[in-house]
């Protein structure tokens, strides 16, 4: 990098006199080629044109950073909207990322370019300036050779003469101004129009060095209060009258203009490039994102059930392949679903056919059995008993068939509700009535705790009553002659019925199994009531159809409790039940009747 610097070439004259001397000494010839200034010098004073350039570049960098910060702060303020857009739009994300990354890259490259160009331009100027200064040294010596020590007027004349002669030598280093100074104030008092030479430079020159410094200098041919970036080369001239300091002031306005032009060009083309790349990225992302959006929309429609939806495919590129694979997937999905629908249709028809085909002969058997059963008094005992068994088993067979058909209806997804607002207590009472015969047979009783007011619930009363009959049948099956308690309660959103028995109860983990088809708690235990083993499974399906819950709790030796919770309005989602599942926490419902 080029920094502001003061370069010294020590010992040009072989010695360093500390005061102007009146004798003229021989000055050894300067080296043929002036050495290029030390590049490794890294003093960082920020005076001079090169420094100004770098400062400007830094300022640009800082401004860009500031801009990014402002953008970031705005984004943060924009808050959720922008964040949502950010999360939802791949295009925005890619565009913004490209913008930022390219911006940073172009900024770094720009700074590097400007630095390199500035350094190059200044180095050429410097080399020329040093050459000029070295060449001018002889001329000055010659002019001063005729001046006797102490002769101030002729000395001044010599200075003027040297100035004009040097200026006349023209320059390969461009325009310049000559200033001659002396540490001896009495000598230099006569000098006119001497611009400010930086002290650090003068110190170096007074130490008998050829020195260079970037500093603002007065405009060469204009008003003196205006300064331009400049390069000052100073060299000591030893004469009989002492050591004079000879300064060449090279204006760097042309170079500064060049560098400014380069900066502007780099900045503008950088901004252009970033925008161009961002636009390209947006365009490219759009090309990718559009088919993806089409695919997403198509997938949504597919998911919504429109199985005929496909993506239009054009060409043979990757996007087209995505479309093709998607369409292939949709096609296979459609075929699968069609196949399943066909299977389901067949299943339903099979169910219906079985229903009809099995039921007609069963009806005949049933009627024949009834007839035999009604005449059994006239039969010998074995035949009479056979007729009774035939009748009883026909009942069971019929119940099993009905349950199987009901289950297959759920499996086929064709079960639907006949919703009506009905009093849950009345439905429970009706189910209890229907179960009284069973209760008497089990030497048990059913106790109902219900609120005094009706509990209207939107339900298919036939199914709910069936659930309750199943729960009661199950409870009576396991109650061991202890009473079965039915409790009803409701809140604003839901109504619940619990059926509690104090019989054998359930082992740990069995509460989840009781709803399985043909599940038996204790395989060695016979079914007293001749249930089909499907009752609770059907009840669970019935409860689900209502959007309700059917849950079981049980403890070995303590008993079991089943809880049915229904939303009071059809379609409502259940979040809680007005009755606890575990009876320990049960509270007596106020105003209940038993």
């Amino acid at each position: 990098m080029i920094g502001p610097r003061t370069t010294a070439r020590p010992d040009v004259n072989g010695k360093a006199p500390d005061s102007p001397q009146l004798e003229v000494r021989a000055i050894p010839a300067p080296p043929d080629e002036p050495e290029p200034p030390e590049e490794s010098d890294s003093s960082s004073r920020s005076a001079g044109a090169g420094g100004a350039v770098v400062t400007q570049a830094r300022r640009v960098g800082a401004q860009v950073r500031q801009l990014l910060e402002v953008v970031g702060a705005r984004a943060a303020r924009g808050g959720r909207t922008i964040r949502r857009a950010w999360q939802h739009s791949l295009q925005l994300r890619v565009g913004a990322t490209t913008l930022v990354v390219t911006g940073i890259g172009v900024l770094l490259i720009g700074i590097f370019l400007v630095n390199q160009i500035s350094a190059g331009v200044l180095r050429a100027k410097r080399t020329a300036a040093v050459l000029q200064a070295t060449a001018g040294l002889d001329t000055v010596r010659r002019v001063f050779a005729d001046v006797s020590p102490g002769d101030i007027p002729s000395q001044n004349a010599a200075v003027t003469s040297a100035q004009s002669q040097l200026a006349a030598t023209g320059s390969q280093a461009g325009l310049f101004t000559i200033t001659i100074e002396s540490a001896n104030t009495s000598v230099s008092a006569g000098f006119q129009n001497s611009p400010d030479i930086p002290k650090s430079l003068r110190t170096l020159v007074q130490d008998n060095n050829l020195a260079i410094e970037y500093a603002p200098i007065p405009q060469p041919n204009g008003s003196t209060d205006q300064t331009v970036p400049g390069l000052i080369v100073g060299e000591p001239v030893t004469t009989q009258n002492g050591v004079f300091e000879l300064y060449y002031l090279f204006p760097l306005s042309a170079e500064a203009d060049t560098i400014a032009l380069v900066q502007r060009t780099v900045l503008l083309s950088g901004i252009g490039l970033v925008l161009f790349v961002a636009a390209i990225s947006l365009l490219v992302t759009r090309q990718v994102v559009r088919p993806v959006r089409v695919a997403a929309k198509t997938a949504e429609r597919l998911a919504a059930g429109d199985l005929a939806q496909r993506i239009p495919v054009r060409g043979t590129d990757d996007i087209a392949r995505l479309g093709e694979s998607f369409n292939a997937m949709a096609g296979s999905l459609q075929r699968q679903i069609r196949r399943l629908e066909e299977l389901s249709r067949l299943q339903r028809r099979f169910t219906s056919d079985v229903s009809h085909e099995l039921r007609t002969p069963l009806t005949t058997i049933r009627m024949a059995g009834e007839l035999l059963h009604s005449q059994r008094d006239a039969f010998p005992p074995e035949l009479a008993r056979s007729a009774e068994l035939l009748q009883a088993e026909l009942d069971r067979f019929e119940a099993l068939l009905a349950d199987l058909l009901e289950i297959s209806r759920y499996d086929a997804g064709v079960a639907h509700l006949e919703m009506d607002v009905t009093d849950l207590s009345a439905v429970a009472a009706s189910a209890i009535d229907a179960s009284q015969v069973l209760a008497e047979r089990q030497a048990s009783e059913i106790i109902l705790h219900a609120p005094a007011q009706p509990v209207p619930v939107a339900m298919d009363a036939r199914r709910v009553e069936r659930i309750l009959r199943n729960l009661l049948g199950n409870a009576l099956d396991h109650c061991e002659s202890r009473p079965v308690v039915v409790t009803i309660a409701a809140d604003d959103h839901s109504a619940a019925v619990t059926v509690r028995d104090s019989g054998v109860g359930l082992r740990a983990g069995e509460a989840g199994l009781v709803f399985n088809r043909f599940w038996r708690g204790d395989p060695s235990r016979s079914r007293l009531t001749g249930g089909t083993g499907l009752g609770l499974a059907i009840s669970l399906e019935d409860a689900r159809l209502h959007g309700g819950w059917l849950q079981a709790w049980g403890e070995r030796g303590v008993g079991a409790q089943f809880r049915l919770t229904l939303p009071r309005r059809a379609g409502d989602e259940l979040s809680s039940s007005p009755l606890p599942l575990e009876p320990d926490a049960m509270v007596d419902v106020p105003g209940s009747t038993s």
Partner: protein
Amino acid sequence: MKPRVLVVDDDSALAEMLGIVLRSDGFDPSFVSDGTGALAAFHDTKPDVVLLDLMLPGMSGLDVCRAIRAESGTPIIMLTAKSDTIDVVLGLESGADDYVVKPFKPKELVARMRARLRHHEDVASETLSIGPAESPVSIDVPAHQVTRDGSPINLTPLEFDLLVALARKPRQVFTREVLLEQVWGYRHAADTRLVNVHVQRLRSKVERDPERPEVVLTVRGVGYKAGPP
């Protein structure tokens, strides 16, 4: 005189068994095994009640039902193997008065038939009037005649019974269960779809606008009642 029964069923074993049961219960059954011959047999035998299997070869049970209902109010009881709502409702809407689901018990079937054959001879002269005052529906109970604005309305015996049951107690709300018991003769709660379908059929005949009933009113969550006279 024994009530005549026409059994329309393609299953010969079931038909024969039905014959045995019906004869032993004091009916006079005749049989037809396909849908196409059903209407002719109906004309020949002039039955008091028809037992109709819904799944028949030839003409479907629903078509037979509609054909009979188009010319007569004779009670029709469906024998169906399907208890799914759609099948039952389709049958009832085709004009069937009641249905029994196979496999049924003989006693249940006979009870259904007797309920449909019940006569109201005991009623002396009785005239009822319900519906809006400016256009009431008048019912002459012994004559089994219903008129509105002077023109007669043709009701099946079941629809007539349903209307009379409601009209006799104009302010009372009847639950579907009560109606099932009074009109259909069910002792225990049965399928309330029967009531819904027949109330709709009745409305389509007696109401000026079945969408906004004035004669048979729905009481939400409870049941039905007759409109104010």
